């Protein structure tokens, strides 16, 4: 359904049979296509703009190497800048703090917080050999606490006992106490989904943050998100200072431009990708792969890499 960027740029740039350096005019025309491709990949418009400026600066005057076309050359530069912007090295969850290390999960409704909480707990238990406690602070969604409890049983990680009638803040305090007394290494706090316009709920999550002092605050967001990615990322970051982003539903066939948008507006690393409903569907973020997705290609980059 989408043309890959290399096909599109091919149409424009490969007419230029001449060789030599890319001119301002070549690059300018190419950037119009790059802009369109990025918007179709759901990269937020303002981010597209600063991104194409960066690429333009980098590309003008670059010598086109013999074995590739000018179009392929531009794609390679776009790809490189994309990978740089996404963050070149993997940035794992940081547990370098006194135990129990609190991790706070936040995000919009239905983004995948509860599922990701259990996936991370499983990973830290199995790979990191940590004692993890999970707690649901979701007092709103029907059966939210039962959902986390069921997942806890599935991944064999303890969950805080459910006490009906407590507020999110009360549960958070109880979770911290239980984690301390129970000698847990990590306590993961799953929160209810909230829209960022809901002042009462944003205040609630800020209060939870204030009393638990989490070492990681992870924004869980859907990788199929469109232009709203910037609003959501900015709003959560300004309210609870996120330390990283988890993008779920990376197993979908979306182009995933939200990754670039959220990274660019917050400067916070994308730490993990959710790649399925099942508990093993969690992967380290790989900027190369995500960049190839956003551009709808991967082959050309490999080709230029070899040249």
């Amino acid at each position, binding site marked *: 359904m989408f043309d890959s960027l290399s096909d599109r740029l091919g149409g424009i740039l490969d007419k230029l049979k001449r060789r030599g350096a890319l001119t301002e005019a070549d690059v300018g025309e190419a950037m119009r296509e790059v802009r369109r491709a990025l918007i*179709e*990949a*759901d990269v937020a418009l303002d981010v597209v703009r600063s991104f194409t400026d960066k690429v333009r600066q980098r590309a003008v005057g670059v010598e086109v190497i013999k074995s590739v076309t000018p179009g392929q050359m531009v794609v390679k530069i776009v790809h490189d800048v994309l990978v740089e912007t996404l963050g070149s090295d993997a940035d794992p969850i940081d547990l370098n703090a006194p135990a129990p290390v609190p991790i706070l999960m936040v995000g*919009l*409704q*239905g983004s995948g917080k509860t599922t990701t909480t259990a996936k991370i707990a499983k990973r830290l238990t199995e790979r990191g050999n940590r004692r993890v406690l999970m707690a649901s602070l979701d007092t709103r969604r029907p059966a939210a606490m039962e959902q986390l409890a*069921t997942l806890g049983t599935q991944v064999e990680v303890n969950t805080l006992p459910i006490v009906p009638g407590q507020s999110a803040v009360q549960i958070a305090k109880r979770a911290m106490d239980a984690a301390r007394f129970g000698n847990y290494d990590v306590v993961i706090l799953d929160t209810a989904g909230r829209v960022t316009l809901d002042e009462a709920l944003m205040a609630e999550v800020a209060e939870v943050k204030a009393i638990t002092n989490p070492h990681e605050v992870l924004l869980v967001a859907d990788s199929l998100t469109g232009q709203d990615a910037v609003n959501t990322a900015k709003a959560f970051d300004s309210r609870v200072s996120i330390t990283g982003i988890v993008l779920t*539903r990376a197993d979908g*066939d979306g*182009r995933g431009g939200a990754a670039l948008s959220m990274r660019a507006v917050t400067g916070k690393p994308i730490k993990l990708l959710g790649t399925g409903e099942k508990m093993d569907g969690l992967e380290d973020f790989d900027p190369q792969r995500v960049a190839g997705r956003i551009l709808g290609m991967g082959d050309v980059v490999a080709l230029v890499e070899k040249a």
Partner: protein
Amino acid sequence: ARTATSLTQGITDLVTKRKLDAETLEELEDLLIRADLGTATAARIVEAVGKGRHDKMIAPDEVKGLIASEVEEILGPVAKPFVPDAGQKPFVVLMVGVNGSGKTTTIGKLAAQWRSEGKRLTLAAGDTFRAAAIEQLKVWGARTGAHVVAREQGADAAGVAHDAITEARANGSDIVMIDTAGRLQNRTELMDELEKVVRVVKKLEPTAPHAVLLVLDATVGQNALNQVEVFARTAGVTGLVMTKLDGTARGGILVAIAQKYRLPIHLVGVGEGAEDLQPFSARDFSRAIAGLD
């Protein structure tokens, strides 16, 4: 639907400062792109707005009105109330969509509405995969006084749908709503499973499902086009619901979807409560996109 503050501000600035020239139109296009209409749809609307008006001085509200009416022209024909056919008893509704879009909650909201109209309802807990999905539907059943048919987690979804229709016939239900597990449309094995649910329902009642509602989350970007395409092909979607319009997302992809697929748009979700469901209004939605109240 709400006003997009930044959009309003943007249009006001750009029109009070200049006339309707090429640059202004381009900025107008950007504003539509920010609402997720996509490049092609945004370009088409802006072209229509600019037609015959190049370089005219034009008041801010006039531009907003023009955008709203172009969008409304696309959405008007597909805005259709969701009314179950009383001639079908039970009227069978199948709820489908990607993960977390709001299927189960929308069933709860519809149940609340129809129960208040005195209808008898049976809900099928067809999401047998997700942890506590069955409990979630049961809570909605208890809240609204709808009968819930469920099997254990991991059971065959088509079997649950079958049981629910059989029970609904026996208990004289007017409407059956079948919840399904969220699934991404590129996951073939899961789409096959959905196809099977439809097949089993049809075997029991050839005219059913009478409605297949695809639930879209307002935050979704261009991938929604693909969702509509594949769910329509697999499950025979008859109409759309858009949830989470109470957030900052505008849901503009609906405009592109309306142009391409012409599927009816029935309902919008504006919150998590039972009452937070409204009929889709082309006028309100278009005005929100254009930044008018």
